[in-house]
């Protein structure tokens, strides 16, 4: 029989309710899988065996008592380590938060717990979610389960590697410029970035407040939908969270694409894209056409400038968001004769190179005399991009593109040149700038057996149609490959 760790959330839920196995069995299978894969992947920074076992036993007891919390009841899930968990170390993969234990749970964590989910632990990320390969972690990189010589993408690379390898049934990551969708693409998963404000950011360690959104990573569209339904909806603790109720996306998966207008974005389908990625993308578009979708060509002229815009706005916001890490109230302190000296030393030693670079960049972009030329202008260009999207959505119900220009790249391949690294988010970060939802799902493998991701974008609050299209593509493409490392048998590197 198949290893429990490889079940979908849906299948696991059915088995639980049939009494085939308990939540504790799902957890033990997951921990057994992790005990094998972690040596190769380093997907997790913390595995909370004790807490998870307690939660799993509680979930079984509740279910036995007829207290069914729904689709995530008893399901082992992982959390990106920039989501605050009360009593469980939360570091954002930074030296400056080594050993930090939050006194509160993020809203999404509260909601998962309330839904009966079992938190397995905290997954690795690029420090403070700044990166696209999970190589910028103070605690060492995570590797890709499809090929341990490759990166899993980032910044939610640990979460993606864990879900792909079966050391979690699903996970929550955060997406500021593609940090859920790009690792999902590179690890053969479904990953979604909801509309800005759809999911509460309370308890997410902020990177860029106007771009950050928490999103699910899962092995199927339906699993991702169940995760999103559990965390979406207004939160009074987040002033930017959207007040109107979030419609269920798991109820929106049927209906197909008949008559739906699917837009191909000129600026996201041209040069700079790996040939195999491009071919797979076009083949999938053709399949959609065969299934009755109306394919239209649209243009987002400003998308060409999204990268430069993003790399002014995100660093500016992060330079303020990360100012609180100063050695006074928590985290790393490097002492000095004065508080000023202590703060500067703590920050100088506590932050890694990518974070330091972005703080410097953002501080400069906001400083007197440069604000208008950099941050101010970037915010105006952001408006132009949103106008481009608005026009495109008059002609299309959803927009599609490759999720990333390439499949997984090698460890160390892009670490020396920040700009080439930034380029792997070029197709995902426009949705963050626009505040619109985006989703990546796997549509095939390249010659090296590495997954290729397909991105579906929708207008604000368009999650239902976005998931409906994704579900149809999943059916049509029938991608069912699993990474060789997704096994509980000991494998040699």
């Amino acid at each position, binding site marked *: 029989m198949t290893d429990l760790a490889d079940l979908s959330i849906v299948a696991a839920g059915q088995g639980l309710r049939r009494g085939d196995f308990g939540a504790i069995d799902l957890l033990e299978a997951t921990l057994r899988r992790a005990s094998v894969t972690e040596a190769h992947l380093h997907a997790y920074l913390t595995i909370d065996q004790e807490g998870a076992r307690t939660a799993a036993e509680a979930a079984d007891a509740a279910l036995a008592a007829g207290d069914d919390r729904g689709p995530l009841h008893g399901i082992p899930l992982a959390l990106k380590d920039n989501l605050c968990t009360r009593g469980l170390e939360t570091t954002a993969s930074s030296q400056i938060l080594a050993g*930090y*234990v939050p*006194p*509160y749970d993020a809203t999404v964590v509260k909601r998962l717990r309330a839904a009966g989910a079992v938190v397995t632990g905290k997954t690795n990320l690029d420090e403070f979610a700044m990166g696209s390969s999970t190589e910028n972690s103070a605690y060492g990189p995570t590797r890709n389960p499809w090929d341990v010589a490759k990166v899993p993408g980032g910044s939610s690379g640990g979460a993606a590697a864990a879900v792909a390898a079966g050391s979690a049934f699903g996970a929550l990551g955060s997406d500021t410029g593609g940090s859920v969708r790009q690792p999902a693409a590179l690890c053969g998963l479904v990953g979604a970035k909801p509309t*800005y*404000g759809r999911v509460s950011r309370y308890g997410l360690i902020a990177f860029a407040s*106007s*771009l950050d959104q928490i999103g699910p990573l899962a092995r199927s569209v339906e699993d991702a939908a169940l995760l999103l339904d559990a965390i979406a909806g207004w939160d*009074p603790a987040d*002033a*930017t969270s*959207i*007040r109107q109720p979030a419609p269920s996306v798991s109820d929106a998966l049927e209906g197909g694409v008949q008559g739906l207008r699917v837009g191909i974005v000129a600026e996201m389908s041209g040069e700079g894209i790996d040939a195999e990625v491009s071919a797979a993308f076009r083949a999938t578009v053709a399949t959609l056409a065969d299934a009755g979708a109306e394919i239209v060509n649209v243009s987002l002229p400003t998308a060409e*400038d999204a*990268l*430069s*815009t993003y*790399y*002014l706005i995100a660093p500016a916001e992060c*330079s303020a968001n990360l100012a609180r890490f*100063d*050695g*006074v*109230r*928590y*985290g790393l302190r490097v002492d*000095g*004769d*004065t*508080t*000023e*000296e*202590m703060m*500067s030393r703590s*920050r*100088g*030693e506590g*932050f890694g190179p990518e974070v*330091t*670079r972005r*703080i*410097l*960049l953002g*501080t*400069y972009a906001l*400083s007197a005399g440069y604000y208008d*030329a*950099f941050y*101010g*202008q*970037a*915010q*105006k260009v*952001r*408006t*132009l991009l949103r106008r481009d999207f608005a026009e495109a959505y008059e002609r299309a119900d959803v927009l599609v593109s490759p999720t990333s220009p390439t499949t997984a790249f090698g460890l160390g391949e892009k670490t020396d040149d920040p700009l080439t690294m930034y380029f792997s988010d070029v197709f995902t970060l426009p949705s963050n*700038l*626009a*505040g*619109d939802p985006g989703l990546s799902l796997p549509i095939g493998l390249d010659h090296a057996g590495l997954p290729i991701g397909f991105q579906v974008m929708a207008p604000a609050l368009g999650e239902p149609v976005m998931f409906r299209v994704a579900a149809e593509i999943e059916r049509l493409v029938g991608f069912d490959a699993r990474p060789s490392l997704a096994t509980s048998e000991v494998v040699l590197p």
Partner: protein
Amino acid sequence: MPVHVDIAKVAKLARLALTDEQLERYGAQLDQILGHAERIQAMPTEGVPPTAHPYPMTNAFRPDEVAPSLDRDEVLAQAPDAVDGYFRVPRILGEE
């Protein structure tokens, strides 16, 4: 025109104690990255309002109600240095 960032000044503003070698490297990288901003700086944006928030809404308030505060011991347990219920820091410039 090529950008040249006064990186030492920026590092001081950002409270980052960096070595000269680090300052030099970051300075060069900032100049390069900001060079790519020239394109967007050249874009015509007269009369274009800035986007500070991608999902426009107004007036998100909370009622004036008291909620429980944190347990002080739990808070101070995370502090690098604390004494008698206070956080403790090295002397503050201008406050001696």
